[in-house]
């Protein structure tokens, strides 16, 4: 299946992916209204190692530890996509405790939040990829 991958040699560290992600998942139609003067809770984040920057988001693991560890049964894998049912999540952050990529984070409401590939928001495809100015994040099928 298609996943989000990062080409760290192209990443400019501009953080646009974070803003595009937060906007796509905000439910708002106006980016300024969605993001201005507010703390944002993007589901992708930029990390830095020396001069290198790169984006980190959910890997949608083959055998996801977060799904097996969720104490509320709120995380499931459907058609290859790891999803969080935010109405069931109580914000215990056991998924944060077990994710080896640091890709699950507490969201705005306290419930855990992570990349769900924008498949169910108005963007319809990963907004981080769509808005990346230098093709540093791609959405593609790769060999297992």
């Amino acid at each position, binding site marked *: 299946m298609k996943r989000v991958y990062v080409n760290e040699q192209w990443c400019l560290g501009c953080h646009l992916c974070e803003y595009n992600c937060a906007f796509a998942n905000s439910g708002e139609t106006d980016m300024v209204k969605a993001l201005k003067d507010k703390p944002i809770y993007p589901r992708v984040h930029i990390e830095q190692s020396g001069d290198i920057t790169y984006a980190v988001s959910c890997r949608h693991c083959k055998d996801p530890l977060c799904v097996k560890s969720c104490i509320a049964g709120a995380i499931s894998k459907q058609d290859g996509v790891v999803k969080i049912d935010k109405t069931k999540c109580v914000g215990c952050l*056991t998924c944060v405790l077990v994710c080896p990529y640091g890709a699950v984070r507490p969201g705005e409401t306290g419930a855990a939040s992570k990349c769900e590939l924008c498949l169910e928001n108005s963007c319809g495809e990963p907004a981080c990829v769509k808005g990346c100015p230098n093709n540093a994040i791609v959405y593609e099928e790769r060999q297992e």
Partner: protein
Amino acid sequence: MSRFVIIGNGIAAAGCIEGIRSVDKDSPISVISAEKHKVYSRPLISYYLEGRTSLEKMNYRSEDFYKKNGVQLIYDTAEMIDTKKGTVGLSGGRSAAFDKVCIAAGSAPFVPKISGLDKVKNKFTFMTIDDTLALEKSLKKDSRVLIVGAGLIGLKCAEGIFDRVSSVTVCDLADRVLSSILDKDCAQVMQKHLEKKGIRFMLCDTAERFEDTKAVMKSGKTVDFDILVLAVGVRANTQLAANAGAQVDRGIIIDTAMRTSLENIYAAGDCTQGHDSSVGTSRVLAILPNAYMQGFCAGVNMAGGESSITDAIPMNSIGFFGLHCASAGSYFEKGEGEIYEQKSCGGIKRLYIKDGRLTGYIIIGDVTGAGIYTSLVREKTDLSGVDMEELKKNATLAIFLPQTRRKKLGGVV
């Protein structure tokens, strides 16, 4: 075709069902449930009292879970396992025949013998939905609550009921709160936070006798209460396995494939004692993720597949009144290795580093990225290829060598 029977209907049982079905789509599965509830998340009972979830949302799986998986759910109590006949005897003389059985019987609250306890009217344990509903019924705005036990269960109960009662006092014989997951200094950070919220503690002290609604403590102090919650600890339900002749210690002894010492009998979850890879010994690891994974592993093996768990470690994520705490692995005394400490506003982080490995950690406060530390503990990662300064500062993938990081982010994992 095999006949599968699962004794118990908690998280390990759900894992076992899904494990069996990942290999065998057709053979009949019977689940014996002593509680008259479909599988639900026990750790959510305090969130229910707090109003942060509902009975319906506490269901661990969807409404059609049993039907979809071809499971016959039997509300009954398993009383004995007849290994010769291959049957599980149920109350009232019925029985369920099996080729492979998984004991996922969980644990039960340990109720200490305390003089006068039998005469205390409003006393509760805090483990099941039924316990919770019974406790909820007795909660009144002016109730004074005494909780015996400052562990995970006792403190989660304290948080859950805090806004619904007049006062909450927690006592524990231990010298600190959460003694199973926190070292002494970190426990103090959490205790201070809880005290600030209004919970009263009596540590190194416990109820020695009860006189109606008064507890006389070991220290000689007295506590007047309306409601008593007993959260001293839990004991693995091992009796069924022991009576059948299985090897039992503090839990039912299992190997890395979830086999007990008896043929065709597997066990999973809080009733078991298995390999704790963080210390290399056999221990009861009664945590929910472990229950699911053990159940799944047992199910795969029961159905003829191959699975084993060799990297189980203690780990916990829990929060109280908005302050989170993540911990994993094992700790050691000062001098046995390096204990890195970083204090933040209202929080603390401690990394236990020994022989070039992260053996354990505790974070109270911002737990972002904690899973990266957990993976270093679980995988016993050799830290020689890791940027130690970066590791101490932040839990990010920047701690790894570039090639390791590129593999993690550029490949299918």
